[in-house]
């Protein structure tokens, strides 16, 4: 009860504080540069230049503090030892380069990057196109979109049941299917290499819905008459899809692809819940977690974090630039 009260008070102070800030800073600005008198015109212009900074300024400052400080701190720690007490130069990085588990993580990460964005975008596009014209299309879309609402941890748990292999009565869905066809049950999550693919399936299942929603909107944005022109030009449905539709939504496909790529680079929960990186399924984010929180090795953990950041940055940059271009 006390906690609820505390939360309510915090919210009241927060929201009230924001409202007060907007009101007060605006009032001050209007007093300094009043929109009347002989300089009304230039005052309005000046005030308009300053007002955005007053309004978004606090948010920018807070965001910067929460984003930039951790980056600098992580970078600093990656050059320090396990407890961040002594400078160790680049030895954390050279340890990483020699570590077998890190090699495994990089290789798996690469696999994830290759498979998940491609499959999720592909299935998303397929679903978007196929559900477009049918009567129960919207129902189908909701079904495909639904996994988006499940947390990665939840999804991991669900799929762990799918891949489970139990003695006695079988509770693993996949094994039940295999057995129904007369096959032998498997410890799916321990099958080398394939277990990676099975983990990826979970993320594809989640992200295909996202891809579908965005691409479906893009497909609807294609001018109908370009498609009619193509019909008159004699194009068949495949040619229309690949030569007229896909090129027109290429930049959206790019944005979807890169957005999923960034998610993939950060993938952690699914691996943590389902295998915790055992049996050759380690990925970077899980390795970082393992080093940081299980082994309390801040130096090496931070070094992995920096590697992840370096991998994400260029994609992020490309994505933002592309999204901006789209807006213009």
């Amino acid at each position: 009860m006390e906690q609820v009260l505390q939360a309510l008070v915090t919210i009241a102070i927060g929201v009230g504080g924001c409202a007060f800030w907007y009101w007060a800073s605006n009032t001050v600005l209007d007093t300094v540069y009043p929109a009347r008198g002989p300089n009304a015109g230039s005052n309005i212009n000046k005030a308009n230049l300053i007002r955005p900074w007053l309004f978004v300024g606090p948010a920018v400052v807070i965001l910067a503090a929460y984003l930039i400080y951790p980056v600098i701190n992580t970078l600093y720690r990656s050059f320090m030892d396990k407890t961040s007490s002594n400078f160790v130069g680049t030895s954390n990085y050279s340890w990483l380069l020699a570590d077998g588990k890190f090699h495994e993580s990089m290789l798996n990460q690469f696999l994830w990057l290759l498979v998940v964005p491609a499959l999720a975008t592909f299935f998303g596009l397929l679903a978007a196109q196929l559900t477009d014209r049918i009567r129960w299309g919207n129902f189908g879309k909701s079904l495909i979109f639904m996994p988006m609402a499940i947390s990665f941890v939840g999804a991991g748990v669900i799929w762990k049941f799918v891949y489970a292999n139990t003695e006695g009565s079988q509770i693993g869905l996949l094994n039940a299917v295999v057995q129904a066809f007369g096959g032998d049950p498997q410890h799916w999550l321990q099958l080398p290499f394939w277990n990676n693919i099975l983990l990826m399936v979970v993320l594809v299942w989640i992200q295909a819905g996202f891809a579908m929603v965005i691409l479906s909107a893009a497909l609807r944005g294609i001018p109908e008459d370009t498609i009619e022109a193509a019909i008159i030009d004699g194009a068949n449905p495949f040619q229309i899809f690949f030569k007229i539709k896909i090129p027109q939504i290429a930049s959206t496909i790019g944005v979807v692809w890169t957005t999923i790529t960034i998610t993939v680079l950060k993938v952690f929960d699914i691996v943590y819940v389902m295998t915790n990186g055992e049996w050759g399924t380690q990925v970077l984010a899980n390795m970082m977690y393992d080093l940081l929180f299980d082994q309390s090795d801040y130096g090496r953990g931070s070094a992995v974090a920096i590697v992840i950041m370096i991998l994400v940055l260029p994609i992020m940059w490309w994505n933002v630039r592309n999204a901006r271009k789209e807006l213009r």
Partner: protein
Amino acid sequence: MANLKLTNVEKAYGDVKVLKNINLDIKQGELIVFVGPSGCGKSTLLRMIGGLETITSGTLEIGGQRMNDVPPAQRGIAMVFQSYALYPHMTVRDNMSFALKIAKKSASEIDTAVKRAAEILQLTPYLDRLPKALSGGQRQRVAIGRAIVRDPQVYLFDEPLSNLDAALRVATRIEIAQLKEKMPNSTMIYVTHDQVEAMTLASRIVVLTVGQGIGQVGTPLELYERPENEFVAQFIGSPSMNLLDGEVTETGAQTTVKLASGGVARSAVPTQASDKGMKVRVGIRPEDFVATTGEAAFTGEVDITEALGELTQIYFRQGGDKGTIIAKMPGIHSNLRHNKVSLTADPKKVHLFHNGKSLLYR
């Protein structure tokens, strides 16, 4: 052999019949213009010919072959859309060659066709540009070029000029007229809202009514001089023909009509003795009024004058008539406002309608 024939064509969306009783016989080389009020189904009819809409009933023949169920690409037609519908991701060259590539034509054949079309339309310098780097007029020419390269039997144009500004519209209209001259054997069907386009381009005009089928088919001058019914009479010409209620008083080679306002109008439309007493509507185009000092059929006080430079449009009302009469007088007559005018008209230019139908076509 590109005769195009529509027999009893109908289009229904659910229970709503948008088009019915469409019968048309179009000869090779004609330029047919569809006009009609907004929503009357011009685009729908054109799209049915093109194969983008199904034909609810009736038959469409092109070159003597039934085309109802033939896919658009095999009908020998090409369509130019109002919004150009260029493929935004392809260069002008690729836009024009798309259909030929789909048809698996050889590279040299495609090249020749594109070059020829580009030359006709003066697009050669722009062949490697994307549509977004072209002006509206150039885009429209690319859209036409895309049709030309396919060398179709029938060209379908759906308001191709309506997205262009007034000056460009005139220029492109003339280009289309010249294009038609260069391709005397191609049949063209052209939908427009613009009377001038219809009058200048058409070899024949088809006036469509809302839900009542075709109003009249004829050459531009036929429609202007001898409209079959009040709808066509009012649709062709701007401002519309004035229609005044009256009653036939004298018949013969010339007909005399006593107007509801009390004036007496004479028309060169012949009537028989039995027509005496018939309720008719007298139709006079605004440009057919002439000022007179003698016996005036139409008199009234002017409400509004609109001086357009070469002529002045005057709006006046005569007692007993319901609506306002519009007349065009050559020159500038702003001084007529709130003054009385006395007008008459050449009997040859006075139309008579009974129950909406012209007495010329009995």
